[in-house]
């Protein structure tokens, strides 16, 4: 029964992937290989699409793999499977956190966790920036169009409070003409 297999596989993937969508990719690959669902080439293509389309990579790849394996219902079941475990974990954790939010132990832990998370966010910016801000054969090794887009959108969002979605749309259109 392929639907049950999909549900079970993606439930497992959702439950054991710590660290977001990228951490999920090797787990998905393992499940696909053990069930012979897709070829390696198909899988690589799926990840490439999951990275470029909007939305969480985890959801994109689950939907895509499910669709390839068993059509619309396959997509539905895989997406549900990957969301369910964390949904319950997050709800339970939310209950606990709101109950103990004023507890000194919780306050102490958050005091130390917040700066770590700040570094994690900064790291995410560097991670994305590495793929787009540099160019080998230009002045100072920087891709000046990207640097320009990044600079003006930073100003736009911090100084002029422009909506991020507006900036994303402008940059998409601009990108098509400028690069």
């Amino acid at each position, binding site marked *: 029964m392929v639907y049950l297999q999909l549900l079970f596989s993606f439930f497992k993937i959702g439950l054991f992937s710590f660290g977001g969508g990228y951490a999920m990719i090797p787990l998905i690959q393992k499940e696909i290989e053990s069930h012979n669902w897709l070829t390696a080439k198909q899988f690589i293509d799926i990840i490439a699409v999951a990275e470029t389309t909007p939305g969480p990579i985890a959801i994109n790849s689950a939907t895509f793999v499910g669709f390839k394996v068993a059509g619309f219902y396959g997509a539905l079941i895989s997406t549900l499977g990957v969301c369910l475990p964390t949904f319950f974990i997050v709800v339970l954790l939310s209950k606990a956190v709101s109950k103990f939010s004023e507890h000194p132990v919780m306050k102490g832990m958050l005091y130390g966790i917040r700066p770590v998370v*700040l570094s*994690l*966010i900064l790291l995410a910016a560097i991670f994305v920036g590495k793929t787009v*801000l540099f160019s080998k054969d230009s002045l100072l090794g920087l891709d000046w*169009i990207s640097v320009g887009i990044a600079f003006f959108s930073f100003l736009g969002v911090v100084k002029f409070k422009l909506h991020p979605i507006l900036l994303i749309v402008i940059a998409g259109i601009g990108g098509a003409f400028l690069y």
Partner: protein
Amino acid sequence: MNLLLELFITFFRVGAFTFGGGYAMIPLIQYEVCDNKKWIKEEDIVDILALAQSVPGAIAVNSSTFIGYRIAGIRGAIAATFGVVLPSFLIILGLAGLLLKYGDNVILGKIFYGIRAVVVSLILAAVYKLYKSCLIDYWTVIIAILAFVLLIIFNIHPIFAIICGAIVGLILYHNTQQNLKTKGGN
């Protein structure tokens, strides 16, 4: 408008415009959930992210569930999660075939390249907005720098970094509280 419907629509928008992983969603959440709707305070985002990163699963989905639950209980959690997941689901079903066929399309590549450049600065803007509530004294600055170095040079796992932060925070926090008490006693 019905609160659940509002949650759904808000997170639908967030899901539809999140390019490049969970952290790219932060600026959108700041704008939609904090500035527009005033559902949560901006500095609370950091705590939500810490939790979302500490449990398994996609960070974007986890933080949506978490915020939804905070605003409207279990039904809010369902509405927000459903909202953030649905755009990807529809886009993949609708466009996946086309993207696989025309994925090498030059113009499409340029569009996504431009978007990534914005995503960099959107995430940086999130750091800029959040640093004051995270770095409140010398210790927190030191923790942030140490975490950054460990993460980027030694490539430690984010969850390990968060656990270390929690332990160090616990020790330091109680020391400072105790110091305050003894000072108050004098």
